[in-house]
């Protein structure tokens, strides 16, 4: 291989861009060629010299650049510690405020955590009267945790509060909730069973 041709490969080799075969070729050649050996050494020195050629970094370089960037609104401003604290304090403060509002606006919620549906009488849960007992029902929605059948005091208070808004029929249902809960209470002694009317007398006797 001609020296001129090989010197291009020497250049590649110095830059780490020669293949292993090319690098081996260079090594073999410069061992026996003083001219190419000197060339390789000078080329290496030139590369080293250029990498050592460095500009100075002025002490105010960063400040100057950042000032220009801020003037062009290219640099986000650093948040102050105070702003940072306020931002992160806002989360627990808001949560505490929400809790206080909740407790103040619905004081009975905290006392009676059992759901209204579970505390309602069985009849009220399944029968037509249940509609008037649901929390969504406007007259009783102010005390969703209360039940009318199992706590007479609350029943009275709730009924008194809602009394003005109840129809006479609803008031009647509420007044006889215990009967609805236990229909056998209607069977007073001496009363005639409705079914007996349709049964033959002999069967009644037997």
């Amino acid at each position: 291989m001609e020296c001129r041709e090989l010197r291009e490969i020497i250049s590649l080799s110095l830059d780490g861009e020669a293949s292993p075969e090319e690098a081996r070729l260079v090594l073999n050649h410069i061992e026996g060629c003083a001219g190419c050996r000197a060339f390789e050494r000078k080329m290496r020195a030139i590369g080293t010299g250029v990498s050592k050629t460095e500009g100075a970094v002025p002490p105010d370089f960063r400040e100057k650049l950042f000032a220009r960037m801020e003037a062009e609104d290219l640099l986000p401003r650093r948040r102050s510690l105070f702003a940072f604290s306020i931002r992160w304090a806002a989360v627990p403060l808001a949560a505490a405020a929400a809790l206080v509002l909740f407790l103040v606006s619905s004081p009975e919620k905290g006392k009676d955590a059992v759901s209204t549906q579970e505390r309602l009488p069985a009849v009220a849960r399944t029968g037509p009267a249940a509609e008037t007992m649901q929390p969504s029902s406007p007259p009783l929605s102010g005390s969703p945790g209360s039940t009318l059948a199992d706590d007479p005091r609350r029943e009275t208070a709730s009924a008194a509060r809602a009394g003005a808004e109840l129809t006479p029929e609803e008031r009647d249902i509420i007044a006889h909730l215990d009967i609805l809960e236990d229909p056998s209470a209607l069977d007073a002694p001496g009363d005639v069973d409705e079914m007996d009317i349709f049964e033959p007398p002999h069967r009644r006797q037997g």
Partner: protein
Amino acid sequence: MRTDEELIELYRKGSRDAFEELFARYHRKVIHFAYRMTGDQARAEEAAQETFLRIARAAFTWEPKARFTTWMYTVARRTTLNFLRDDKDDRDKVPILPGEETDDGSPAIQLPGPSALNPEEMAWGAEIQERFVAALQKLPEGYRSAFVLNRGDGLSYEEVAAVLGITVQAVKSRIFRAREMLLESLSELLP
């Protein structure tokens, strides 16, 4: 450690720290590149400042198709070229050779004798650096860019090709020619 591309993305989202990190990583490299390209400290500083400003301005529209450094050096080279063009009318000055006089009539810097000038062995001094910078300025800009990016900044041939928008084969050729021309310019320094 976050990648350059991640830092640019964070900067786009409003992180000042991300830009500061990029600046910390690369401002020296950009200044050195600009100095090797212009041969002038004040010009290098201006070009480096302008390079970072352009990067910040373009960050919001930049699409990371290539490495950040490839883009950064592309911006740095174009910026430096603009400065060189602006200076062209003023740059009819011929690089000062040993023994000549400077513009103000003072004697030019006397370089050490050839036997001391192997950069791997010699003590690197300001005079020798100036000599190297002057030799670089004599190269055609295309050769100088290729050689400086490869030897000065450590970019591979492929990365140099991406920055300059040329083929890898063209990069090989330019770097070899640059070496030959520098060898000629600096022959007095190299035994």
